[in-house]
């Protein structure tokens, strides 16, 4: 992060389209604002909405890069708007909504429904064998294993990886990087009792790990820096092991 130049005038070019408005057609609209120290796109977009165009739609909630609401294309690259500092960007900032997801309006897209469908398709929950016993002590787990699961559980489902994925952009059924990560998260968790043949059905097909063609933009752009490279390698090993089993 570099210091903001307080005299800099920023020019925003923002994608506009309100599907609820019959008079609206997709277009780019320009806005100018003065840059402030430590200005994030959260601050900049709110200033534009509150001072210049109150109809502008975008999504923020936590504004601290943990809720995953504000994925957007920033000069052609997906990122979280809240953690993107204007001081890291050139004078002209071009913002588009994330591709792949259904547009709600302007920069706002429907990630919730996409991720719910993905969770349903991959059955992204613990398939427990036994019911919870409220009187029993918790089952033990090695701390290192807990840490590995946590590393993958940290995904905030912002959709940046999906937007950056060449396959997800053209193939609607592909689980996408976030979907593959979810599979790995449950596959490595001993509390999930799905066996090799169950996992083979989920992972080992063209909508699973073999749909990935290895361009790895997801790994480069993931705002939480998930170890996606290692995660796919884990899934491929798991696929081979379950095929052999």
């Amino acid at each position: 992060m570099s210091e903001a130049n307080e005299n800099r005038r920023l020019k925003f070019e923002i994608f506009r389209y309100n599907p609820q408005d019959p008079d609206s057609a997709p277009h780019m609209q320009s806005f100018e604002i003065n840059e402030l120290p430590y200005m994030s796109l959260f601050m900049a977009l709110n200033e534009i909405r509150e001072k210049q165009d109150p109809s502008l739609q975008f999504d923020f909630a936590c504004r601290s890069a943990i809720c995953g609401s504000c994925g957007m294309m920033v000069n052609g690259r997906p990122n979280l708007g809240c953690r993107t500092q204007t001081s890291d960007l050139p004078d002209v900032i071009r913002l588009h909504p994330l591709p792949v997801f259904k547009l709600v309006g302007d920069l706002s897209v429907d990630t919730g429904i996409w991720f719910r469908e993905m969770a349903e398709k991959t059955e992204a929950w613990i398939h427990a064998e036994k019911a919870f016993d409220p009187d029993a002590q918790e089952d033990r787990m090695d701390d290192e294993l807990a840490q590995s699961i946590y590393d993958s559980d940290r995904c905030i489902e912002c959709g940046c990886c999906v937007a950056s994925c060449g396959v997800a952009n053209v193939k609607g059924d592909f689980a996408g990087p976030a979907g593959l990560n979810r599979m790995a998260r449950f596959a490595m968790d001993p509390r999930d009792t799905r066996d090799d043949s169950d996992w083979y059905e989920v992972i080992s097909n063209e909508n699973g790990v073999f749909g990935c063609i290895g361009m790895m933009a997801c790994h480069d752009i993931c705002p939480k820096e998930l170890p996606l490279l290692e995660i796919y390698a884990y899934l491929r090993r798991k696929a081979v092991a379950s095929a052999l089993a």
Partner: protein
Amino acid sequence: MSGRITSTDVLVIGGGLAGERCAIEAAAAGHDVLILSLVPPRRSHSCAAQGGMQAALGNCVKAEGDSPEVHYLDTVRGSDWGADQEVARIFAEAAPIAVRELAHFGVPWTRVKGGSNSYFIKGERVNIDEALENDGLIMHRDFGGTAKWRACYAGAGTGHSALYAIDSEVVRLGVTVRDRAEAVELIHEGGRCHGVVARCLRTGDHSAILAKATVIATGGHGRIYGQYTTNATINEGTGAAIALNTGVVPLGNMEAVQFHPTALSPSGILVTEGCRGDGGYLLDKELNRFMVEAEPEKQELASRDVVSRHMARRMRDGHGVQTEHGPHLWLDVRHLGDEHLKTKLREVWEICRDFVGLDPAKDLIPVRPTQHYSMGGVRVNKEGEAYNMAGLFAVGEASCWDMHGFNRLGGNSLAETIVSGRLVGRHIAKTIGAGGVDVDTRVANEAVKKAEERAARLLAAEGSGPGAYEIRDAMAEVMIGRVGIFRTGEELALAVNELKELLVKCDNIVLRSKVPGMNPELTFALRIKNMVRLSLITAMGALARTESRGAHFRSDHPLRDDAKWLNRTLARWPELSDAPEISYEPVGVLDLPPGHRGYGRDERIEMEQTIEDYNQGVEQAQSEQGKLPTEGWQ
């Protein structure tokens, strides 16, 4: 009109931890459940809870001797005796079960490592041998205001992991979630709630959702402090407001507002108490650890209200680092080392890098106390039932259940969400009737029509009236300036007047954007009057309460007054009235007699009544305020 009415057994408003935990309990019992959420559930503010969830499992050496009893005592003392002690006990006893159940749902809790472990305790590096037979059990970290290490955690993403685990259960059970939707009004008739009018935040359309049980789980309302809060932008008190707007449901203890000691300056982003729990220091501008002198026993791990006041005093006395955004102090976690920071406090490490360009292994973190938690909310009985309204429930931060009283302990809110969600969900599942929703569709249609007309009127208003954002900014300045950490009668009286003026302005708002659809300006304008109402109740409650208790500190009445104020504030807003009505009820049956909290000097005004006399009057006094008899809401 019938296409605009949906029916369900249980309607849960809010897709955070409390709401979803409640939803899966009712769904697992076979009921039809619908969750309404402003955002996709996994984006709810529960995901921002970092450091831990309190449950007395007693798994590590520094937790030895812990029990629900000790947890209960910490919670009541932490509340400055403002809590309902019966609820605090129910909570402390159920917390271990709820936390273990989260392990069952998949939370990757950090685990005990048997053998030698290195910790930082009160400024010293200490080596402790964890028992080999405890290896692999759920680990604890230290948090403020507790006698034992009790906070269970998953890195510094405890809320995130818990929310994802619970939401996975929501998916598994096939619970319907309607996201990007806001409950704008409760549908009720004759003291019974029948569901809500919902506004779709994709299209701006209104519809009715009818339910036999309606649960408010919308979280806190920190955004009444504008940007001076750690809360997400969605924490605007939408749930508390629709309960208040019934005219009969009271909100409890709205003046009890928690300021978290370590929010990042100036953005207000939370930096977890786990930093201090793991051994971090607070430093002033001269790099003095001022908390050691201020509170020799607990030091940085005194209760949040205590630490926040010491910090505010330190800055007021000129020991803060001056910046264009006002003063701040430092949080120092450098000595914890790179590896610890990148694993057990990874979210903190990322936040420092992304939002202030710092490496906490090398740099000091600029922090200052910031609004963080709403102890107040929809007043409910121990089963989660709202006062005066059968079929309406509240859980989590949106509620005033009331285990926190006037100061919540760190890690207790996250535990409350799953404990209250679980218990209230179970209560609803058990007591809900078998028949359909018993309400005339005319009532629902009228409520929808009223909400539509309100939106249409706002959209149609022309002229030079005030904007909604302008009112928000003025409200925020009043709240942080006059209803903050230190309060006085004079400032609070000014706040009440200014907020009343803002309330009048809310009726003259003119929108600049008339676009169809959800229209973000309209969406916010529909909320702002409710936010000013919540602010006004907060200020009026604070003005009336002429004592200092927990987070409510009156510089002009610095002592806790158990003779006069061992009670809970209740605020109702009668229909068509331009001001709320404030009344009081006893805090609940006392088991632990009021005593010294353990901070500063032991000075307070003692109760005049005997405990027995106080306890005898509780049930009747609370019933008079509208508390429903339990098991009787059908």
